[in-house]
C-alpha cells in the first residue's frame, strides 16, 4: 500500500464522514462498473485499486493469502447479451488461474444457476473443477432456490450448513460468514435473513475478539442500494449491529451484476460483477433486467474479484478485474474502513 493510496483512503474516509454519502466516490465507483478493482485487506483497512496489467505481481507480494469472489454465473441463461454464460464462466476461471498468487479458495456469492436445474449445477461444478483453487464456498442466490425451496442447492453445496444454508469458517485468522438472504422472501420486501439466522449470527460472533477480521458474504447486498428494485436486505441492519465492534469487517455481495462500494465506519461493503451478464445502474432502466451490450463489449462488464489479505499489513485489498484482458478504463482509488 503506497502513500498515494493511503492518501486516497484518508480523503475518502473524510468525505464519507462528512456527509455519510460520498457522491464523488459514488460516481467514481459507478465508473468502475465493468472495470477492474482489487481489494487489499491490511489489518482492518480494506482498500481497493484498479487491477491493472503489470501490477499483478506486485499485488501478490507479501500476501498471506488471497481468495477470489465470483458471482451470478446464471448457468442456463441463454439470452442477449450473453448466449453462452458457460463460456464466460470459463473465462473467469482462466482469469483466476492466471492470478500471480494462487487463491486459497473461491467464494461464489450466488445465482450459480438460472433456474435451479440439476444440469445447470452440474455445468457449474464441472467448470469449477478446472479452477486452481480447489475449494469453493457458496451461498445461494434467488435463482438457486427456484424449484424446490433450495433443496437441490442444499444437497449439493450446503453440507454442514444451518437453516437455509448459512455457515461460518475460519481461515488463517479471518472469520468468514456465509449468509442466506434469498429464502422465504416476504411480499413487498427485499432480501431477508430472518430471525433464526440473525440469532445464529449473533451467537456465532459472540466471544470472538474485536480484532478478528470478519468477512460476511451473501447474495443480495447487505446494504440498501436501491429499494425500488429490491437491492437491499430488510433486516441487514441487525446483522451489521453484531459486527460493529470488530475492527475490520468486509461485506461481499453479488446480485446486482455491477461493482458498488460503500464504507461505513469499520465496515466496507462491496458488490461483485457477474460472470454472465450486466445489469443496469440503479434507476437507469425500467427494470433490473439483463442489460444488453454489444458482443464485443460483454467481457468489459463481467469480471471476478480477487481479495488479498495481508496479516502484516493493515488492509484487505479487493481487486475486481474484467474478463476482458485489455483496455480497462479503470483508474484506481482507495476506499477504506478505519481500523481504529
Amino acid at each position, binding site marked *: 500500500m503506497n502513500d498515494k493510496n493511503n492518501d486516497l483512503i484518508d480523503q475518502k474516509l473524510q468525505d464519507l464522514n462528512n456527509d455519510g454519502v460520498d457522491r464523488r466516490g459514488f460516481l467514481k465507483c459507478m465508473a468502475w462498473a465493468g472495470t477492474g478493482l482489487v481489494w487489499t485487506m491490511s489489518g482492518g483497512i480494506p482498500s481497493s485499486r484498479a487491477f491493472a496489467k503489470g501490477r499483478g505481481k506486485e499485488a501478490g507480494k507479501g500476501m498471506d493469502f488471497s481468495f477470489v469472489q465470483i458471482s451470478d454465473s446464471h448457468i442456463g441463461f441463454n439470452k442477449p447479451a450473453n448466449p453462452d454464460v458457460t463460456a464466460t464462466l470459463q473465462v473467469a476461471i482462466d482469469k483466476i488461474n492466471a492470478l500471480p498468487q494462487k487463491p486459497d479458495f473461491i467464494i461464489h456469492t450466488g445465482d450459480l444457476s438460472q433456474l435451479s436445474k440439476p444440469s445447470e449445477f452440474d455445468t457449474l461444478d464441472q467448470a469449477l473443477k478446472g479452477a486452481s483453487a480447489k475449494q469453493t464456498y457458496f451461498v445461494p442466490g434467488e435463482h438457486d432456490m427456484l424449484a424446490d425451496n433450495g433443496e437441490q442447492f442444499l444437497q449439493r453445496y450446503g453440507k454442514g450448513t444451518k437453516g437455509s444454508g448459512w455457515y461460518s469458517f475460519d481461515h488463517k485468522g479471518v472469520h468468514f460468514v456465509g449468509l442466506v438472504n434469498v429464502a422465504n422472501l416476504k*411480499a413487498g420486501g427485499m432480501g431477508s435473513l430472518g430471525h433464526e439466522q440473525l440469532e445464529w449470527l449473533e451467537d456465532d460472533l459472540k466471544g470472538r475478539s474485536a480484532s478478528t477480521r470478519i468477512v460476511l458474504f451473501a447474495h443480495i447486498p447487505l446494504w440498501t442500494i436501491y*429499494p*425500488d428494485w*429490491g437491492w437491499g436486505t430488510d433486516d441487514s441492519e441487525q446483522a451489521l449491529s453484531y459486527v460493529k465492534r470488530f475492527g475490520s469487517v468486509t461485506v461481499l455481495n453479488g446480485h446486482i451484476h455491477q461493482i458498488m462500494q460503500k464504507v461505513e465506519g469499520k465496515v466496507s461493503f462491496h458488490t461483485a460483477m457477474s460472470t454472465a451478464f450486466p445489469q443496469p445502474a440503479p434507476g437507469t432502466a425500467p427494470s*433490473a433486467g439483463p442489460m444488453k451490450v454489444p458482443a464485443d463489449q460483454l467481457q468489459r462488464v463481467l469480471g471476478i474479484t480477487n481479495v488479498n489479505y495481508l496479516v502484516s499489513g493493515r488492509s484487505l485489498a479487493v481487486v475486481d478485474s474484467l474478463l476482458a484482458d485489455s483496455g480497462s478504463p479503470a483508474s484506481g482509488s482507495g476506499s477504506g474502513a478505519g481500523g481504529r
Partner: protein
Amino acid sequence: MNRKNAWIARFTASVAIGIALLVAGSTTVKANDQSAANAEVKIDNFVFGPQTITVPVGATVTWTNKDDIPHTTVSTDGVFKSKVIDTDETFSFKFTKAGTYSYYCSVHPKMTGTVVVQ
C-alpha cells in the same frame, strides 16, 4: 276476444317473449362472461400488469412472463403458487371463490399484484 282481452293477450305474449329474450339474453351474457372473464396478466419489466384485476367467480387468470428473467406468482395467503415461470411461459389459476387475493413474485418480492374475484 274483446279489445281488452286482445290487449291482455298481446301484453302477455310480449311479456313472455320479453322474459324469454331476457332469459336467453342473460344466458348469452353469462356464457360470454365466462370466456371474457378469463383474464390475462403480463409480467413485464418486473411488474405485474395490470397490477389489480377484477374478475367474476369462476374466471381463470393467466400470467405470462415477458421478461428475460424467471418469475413466480405466489398468493400471500397460500391459495395458489406457481412453479417457475420462465420467459414466455405461463401460469393459470381458476378462482372459484369470491375474495381479494394478494400475490407476489417469490423471487423478486417487490413485485406484487392483486386479483379481486366478485
